[in-house]
C-alpha cells in the first residue's frame, strides 16, 4: 500500500512539472529551482509534512523533498540553537545528498565520457 501511495504522490509531483514544462516557457532548470523553493515554502507553512506522512518516498524523492529537508532542518535547529540554526539546519539535514551529489557526480563524470551524438 505504501508503494502505491509513493507512486501516486511522486507521480503527481512529476506530472505537475511536466504540465509546467509543456504549458509554460519554464526550462527544466527553472522547474528544479521553482520546485526546491516550493518545497521549502510548503514545509514552512506546514503543508508538505502531511504529504510526506502520506506519500513517503513519493514526497521525499522529488526535488520538492529536498526543499522539505532543507526547511525542516532549519526549523528544527532554530528551536535548538536559535538564529545560528537558521544557517546550519538546512545544509546539515541535506548534507548526505549534497555530498553524494558532488562526490558521485565527480566520480562518474571522471570514469565515463559522453556518447557520440
Amino acid at each position, binding site marked *: 500500500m505504501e508503494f502505491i501511495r509513493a507512486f501516486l504522490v511522486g507521480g503527481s509531483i512529476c*506530472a505537475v512539472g511536466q504540465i509546467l514544462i509543456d504549458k509554460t516557457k519554464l526550462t527544466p532548470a527553472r522547474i528544479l529551482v521553482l520546485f526546491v523553493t516550493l518545497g521549502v515554502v510548503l514545509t*514552512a507553512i506546514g503543508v508538505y509534512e502531511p504529504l510526506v506522512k502520506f506519500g513517503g518516498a513519493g514526497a*521525499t524523492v522529488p526535488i520538492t523533498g529536498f526543499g522539505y529537508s532543507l526547511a525542516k532542518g532549519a526549523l528544527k535547529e532554530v528551536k535548538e540553537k536559535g538564529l545560528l540554526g537558521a*544557517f546550519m539546519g538546512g545544509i546539515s539535514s541535506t548534507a548526505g545528498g549534497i555530498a553524494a551529489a558532488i562526490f*558521485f557526480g565527480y566520480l562518474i563524470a571522471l570514469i565515463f565520457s559522453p556518447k557520440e551524438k
Partner: protein
Amino acid sequence: MEQGLTKKEYEKYVQKKMPKSPVIKNTIKAFIIGGIICIVGQVVSNYFKGRGMSVEEAGGATAIVMVLLGALLTGLDIYDGIAKHAGAGTIVPITGFANSIVSPAMEFKSEGYVLGMASKMFVIAGPVLVYGIIASIVVGIISFIVKTL
C-alpha cells in the same frame, strides 16, 4: 501482438491507443516514470529503516543511494534515454538532480578538470542549491523572529 503486423502498422496501432494531445501523453508518461522512481526510493528507504535507522537517517541514506543511481545511469547513457520519454518524470526526482550534475561534467571534461568539469557540474545544480538554501535560511530566520516575539 498479432502475427504479421508490420512495424508501420504496429506504430499506427500504438498511436491510436495513445492519448491525442501531446501534453496529456507527456504528463501521463512523466507521472508513471516519476512514480516508479519514487517506488524505488521507497524500497531503498524501507531497507534502511529495516536495518534500524531513524526516519531522518534513512532519508539521508536514501538520498545518497538515489543520487548514486541517477549519476551511474547517466554515466552509462541510460538515464537520458529514459528522459527522452519521461520529461519531468526524470527531471524532478533527485536522480534528475544527479543527472543535471553528471551530464555537463562529462560534456565539459575535455575543457579541463577545474574550469571544465568541476565548474560545469553546477550549471543547474548550483542555482538549485542557491535558491533552496537561501529559502531555508529565510524560513529559519522568520521562525526565529516569530519565536522571539
